[in-house]
């Protein structure tokens, strides 16, 4: 094929690359497709158009183009998930409450040390919990707190955002939403 010349051809190349990627592609990745013959702003515009083409209203398409933390990816529209899930006989095991609470603390309070997590949860952090989250590439060490012992500071990764379909942490439900009624202090 010749170098693309019109919007339709540009979009077709983007579409083919994104459909075969299997993971999000960043704007920088996508610019490589056109070997320097594409402006960033134009690319954004084309991606927006592509997103429109595959939008939920278009019932002829079974995929949708979404933007997550590390870039753009095609994924099955949510209404098909339950069917596709039947293909994998083994369900992904649910994380324990300890894992999810630890993750929530890191997501909302990052960067935090193990000590911070223990202070909030009131129990010692099981090393296994941290390992599970690190192996999933949902958290990593971003530095050390300058106190005795220099404990590691943990934060959530971009991969975590990707896996939860988020572009940034600000898309998480606001923490204030979880505040419950005041515990009364009777005198």
């Amino acid at each position, binding site marked *: 094929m010749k170098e693309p010349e019109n919007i339709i051809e540009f979009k077709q190349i983007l579409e083919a690359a*994104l*459909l*075969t*990627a*299997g*993971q999000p592609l960043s704007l920088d990745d996508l610019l490589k497709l056109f070997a320097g013959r594409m402006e960033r702003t134009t690319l954004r515009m084309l991606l927006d158009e592509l997103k429109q083409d595959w939008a939920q209203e278009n019932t002829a398409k079974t*995929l949708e183009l979404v933007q997550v933390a590390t870039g753009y*990816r*095609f*994924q*099955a529209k*949510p209404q*098909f*998930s339950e069917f*596709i*899930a039947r293909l994998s006989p083994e*369900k*992904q095991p*649910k*994380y324990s*409450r*300890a894992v*999810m*609470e630890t*993750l*929530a*603390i890191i*997501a*909302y309070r990052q960067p935090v040390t193990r000590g911070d997590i223990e*202070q*909030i*949860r*009131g*129990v*010692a952090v099981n090393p296994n919990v941290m390992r599970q989250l690190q192996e999933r590439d949902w958290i990593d060490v971003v530095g050390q707190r300058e106190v005795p012992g220099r404990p590691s500071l943990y934060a959530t990764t971009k991969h975590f955002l*990707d*896996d*939860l*379909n988020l572009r940034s942490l600000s898309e*998480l*439900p606001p*923490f204030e939403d*979880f*505040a*419950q009624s*005041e*515990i009364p*202090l*009777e005198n």
Partner: protein
Amino acid sequence: MQTQLTLGIRVHGETLSELPQDLYIPPDALEVYLEAFEGPLDLLLYLIRKHNLDILDIPMAQLTAQYMEYVEKMKVIKLELAADYLLMSAMLIEIKSRMLLPKPVEVAEEDDPRAELVRRLMEYEAIKLAAQRLDAMPQVGAEIQVAAAYYQHIAEVKPIDVSLDELVEAWRNVLKRAKLTTHHKIGKAELSVREHMSLILRRLKADGMVEFSALFDVVTEGLPKLVVHFLAILELAKEGLIRITQQQAFSPIYLQANTSE
């Protein structure tokens, strides 16, 4: 939005559906019981939210006695968890004793000793709900399927065909070098092209890919032998028994046996 805890605890064959009001839990059931909670904060939160328990109403002496008994039992199993619960009861006792002390009027208003505990409880409660929300969000690998249409990313490398001119040029080079090293003629020899074809084929079979000039031993072989050798190569190529390739003009020429496919 109250959090639901389902407790399926059996003590002496009877199912406990509700936390006993006097907080007494038989030590043999304790481990099971505590596993339903994520720790002392979680347990305390449950008592406060579900049973409207006033932090101050907990009978401290009794509670402490029980906790001590549990700790003794748990030393063997889960010392760390026991320590967490012990710390909590110590904190409760500290709060209660502060509250019981008469407050001197002239001392500036002291913070309510319960305030810090309430703050921690409420923060933990929010985290607990946030964790449930995160858990309910669609995830890649479960509810989200990322498109990955198949694409073979490895491009096929096709060897470049060698033109006859290049082969002739390479041959001339061999001859040139042969001239430089020939001293004298060794007697007559019967040279068979076919024999050389076999020699070359055997060599290619053993070494795989061989560079063109490496096939000519210009130092020890006389000119006629080199000619026969070259003829043998041409014959092999003609019969399609070998493949001759070159990446680009003037780069080394390689020979390899044409394995039947």
